[in-house]
């Protein structure tokens, strides 16, 4: 990919504003060279910037806090880093209704503070201290509390999106129930920016729970460990339930981590009396003890980690009833697991031996694919060194949806400038 011409930079400066374009520091993402960062200051500037990129066929990588830049196939053209950080702030917060309109570049932590001050809870808790709302929505990332909060797709009421040709659009609205035309929100949530750049979102908030309590238990490595964890996750007040391999559990609960088997964290939230009843149940059925909330934050951080810079991290989604076999398959490949037994999500970390351990990569993929197929689900390679991502599609095996995705890409981003090459099938 050729470098940026001075005329390209001029066009971007005209679109986004002189101060919004920084060509001083070059970077790389998965081997693709970034020449400049553009940080539009508002949604109009964002639309003008994307229009300029499309007109000149300059590819960009979209970034919020930069937490999940590792997600996706290697970019085909990443000359521009398009930052949403200039679109920051809560635009509207209706404390009466429990809905808020928040700009995409708003750090989740900032949004959370504002929402909590208004007496509500922001229902997103993915790993990453700098993560922004736009990043969470575009990646569809979830944290341990997704069990209680729901999936990001289910929490978005409306979106402002700039399409790949710079057209600013709005879909959905601010009301909690809406079938006015197609639901385009869900198309953009989790699409890694392939079809547009999210600039703001209307979100449904949750009431703050009256009571929140965290419990930890150890489960021996017996066949009933995972079924017991699934049963715990299905107790109505449970908001988060995480099962962590003994091998990596000391990072979460240094004192309680077992030598073998699993560490189980269960967080209950809601009505005080109901939570108290479930606490007794966990104590008697699992021998669970109450622990400080920091353990859940550490588990969340652990979910986003790898074994060093050359390590792999897969995310599998499988049927809960198949988790036992899935875990066995992955353990056989030397993986360390962090499992959300209630929803069937498995984060599997695998160490590679060397900088270019092709055989290790193949073994890891084979195990991950076998496990995913056995679990009636799929696997995504969420984090890996650049060379390892160039070998095969990080989103796993093609499906019918990929063909439709290609057709959508050609219509929503005709010049293919938004995160080009990064999403499924290299679109």
């Amino acid at each position: 990919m050729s470098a940026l011409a001075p005329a390209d930079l001029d066009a971007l400066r005209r679109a986004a504003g002189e101060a919004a374009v920084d060509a001083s520091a070059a970077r790389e993402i998965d081997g693709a060279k970034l020449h400049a960062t553009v940080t539009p200051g508002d949604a109009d500037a964002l639309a003008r910037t994307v229009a300029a990129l499309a007109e000149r066929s300059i590819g960009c990588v979209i970034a919020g806090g930069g937490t999940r830049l590792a997600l996706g196939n290697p970019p085909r053209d990443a000359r521009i880093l398009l930052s949403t950080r200039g679109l920051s702030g809560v635009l509207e917060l209706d404390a009466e209704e429990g809905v808020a309109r928040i700009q995409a570049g708003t750090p989740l932590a900032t949004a959370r503070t504002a929402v909590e001050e208004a007496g509500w809870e922001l229902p997103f808790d993915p790993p990453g201290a700098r993560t922004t709302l736009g990043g969470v929505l575009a990646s569809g990332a979830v944290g341990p509390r997704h069990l209680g909060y729901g999936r990001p797709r289910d929490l978005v009421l409306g979106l402002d999106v700039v399409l790949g040709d710079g057209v600013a659009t709005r879909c959905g609205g601010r009301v909690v129930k809406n079938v006015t035309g197609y639901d385009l929100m869900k198309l953009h949530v989790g699409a890694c920016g392939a079809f547009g750049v999210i600039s703001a979102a209307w979100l449904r908030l949750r009431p703050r729970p009256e009571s929140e309590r965290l419990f930890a238990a150890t489960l021996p490595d017996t066949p009933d460990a995972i079924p017991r964890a699934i049963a715990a996750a299905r107790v109505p007040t449970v908001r988060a339930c995480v099962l962590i391999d003994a091998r990596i559990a000391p990072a979460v609960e240094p004192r309680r981590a077992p030598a073998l088997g699993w560490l189980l964290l269960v967080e209950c939230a809601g009505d005080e009396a109901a939570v108290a009843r479930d606490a007794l149940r966990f104590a008697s059925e699992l021998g669970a003890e109450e622990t400080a909330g920091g353990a859940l934050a550490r588990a969340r951080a652990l979910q986003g980690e790898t074994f060093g810079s050359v390590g792999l991290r897969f995310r599998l989604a499988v049927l809960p009833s198949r988790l036992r076999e899935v875990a066995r398959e992955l353990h056989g490949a030397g993986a360390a697991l962090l499992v959300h037994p209630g929803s069937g999500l498995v984060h599997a970390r695998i160490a590679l031996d060397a900088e270019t351990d092709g055989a290790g990569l193949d073994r890891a993929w084979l195990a991950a694919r076998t496990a995913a197929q056995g679990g009636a689900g799929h696997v995504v390679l969420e984090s890996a060194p650049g060379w390892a991502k160039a070998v095969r599609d990080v989103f796993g095996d093609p499906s019918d949806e990929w063909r439709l995705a290609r057709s959508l890409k050609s219509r929503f981003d005709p010049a293919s400038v938004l995160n080009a090459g990064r999403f499924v099938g290299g679109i």
Partner: protein
Amino acid sequence: MSRSELVAALRGIVGESQCLARPEELLPYECDGLTLHGAMPSAVVLPRDTEEVARVVRACRRFGVPFVPRGAGTGLSGGAIAMEGGVVIECSRLDRVLAIDAENRLAVVQPGLVNAVLSKAVAPHGLFYAPDPSSQAACTIGGNVGENSGGPHTLKYGTTTNHILALQMVLPDGDVVRIGSPTGWNAGPDLLGAVIGGEGTLGIVTEVTVRLSPIPEAVETLLAIFPDVVAACRAVGRIIRSGLVPAALEIVDRRTIEAVEASVYAAGLPRDAGAVLLVELDGARPAVDRQIERIREAAGAESASRVDVARDAAERERFWRARKGAFGAMGRLAPDLYVHDAVVPRAKLPEVLERVCAIADRHRLRLSNVFHAGDGNLHPNISFDRRDADELARVIAAGREILEVCVAAGGAISGEHGIGVEKREYMKLVYSDADLEAMCRLRAAFDPDLVCNPGKVFPTTRFCIEANPKARGYDGVPL
């Protein structure tokens, strides 16, 4: 190629008896639950499996005839009628439960399965299917997918889109594809979101994997009587602000109470009540018990004259009759009923209701309100006689004004009934040309030739046609 050749080709696929083509057979398909709009199909087919649906679609393509899927035809926006002399693909023979996986809380069903039958089928496993539109005894899962149907329990449980895990569908080019995953997670674009609520314009759904929910440990139903509808709305605001998320929060206004009490649906409501608030609480027993007290407090603070808790299943059913019997009760008032559907931010409900009633009064129309108050989802019902041309014109005019009021309040023009033909011209009240054009891009990715349920959702002028210059004009009008 002629219509008789088309019918012969369709009969070759589904069999003689499963393809209707005589005028008297087609008449029931002229309209759906919204009788204001009608269009006669050229034929109706009743396929028995996915393969037959795919072959019917391919035959329609060969003949250049559009097609439209249809469930029970209970829709209220004209979504299931065949414009441009299209073929109706009737899904009533695709009505089986294919699999129940209680361990993973899911079921695989065919689109023609009746909503209430599904919940009944999974009840022995301690599970239920949460979306329960008022027509659940008749409407089908496929129709619910098409419309992204809601119902009285969406406040807590969400709408259809939150409960569908995967779909098999026949695309408008006749290809059979699977989208979504039984796991509920995607490794690719979330196409379920678009297809659910796509009003049958993106393809014909032939198999549905649904998420099932555990039957809650405790359910309590409360009925509170208020002096007027504003007080009832305020009580709803108090309840939501206090952090409760009841399973249902439904309000019935005075005009509806009068109609219900005069009908076979009579629920024993005081006839002088200004409004009734129906609250359903579900969840863990200790939580529900405490919530009952909080509801009593909230209702009392907004001058409720009484709050009753249903003592048993029979009483719960009687309470619900006040709400669910409303549409039937209206039948006593006039031959036709126009059930409107719009959403506003909940806090705006009192002022919007006042304006809605004023609009009806100004147009000399009989209007009553039942609504999903927790969601801000209004259903102003207008009783009228369609044979009275003047009254019909006033009904239409009032309908548009009601939607304008809701949009001005920050709301949406449909919460659960869809756009269909009914509201396609009103889409511009909510969306800009660019917003609508973005929807057309999605449409074009699935149905570039606009053959799948044409004439719905989008305004008749220009939209989607721009995205595809080769496409026909709507309603047979050449470009």
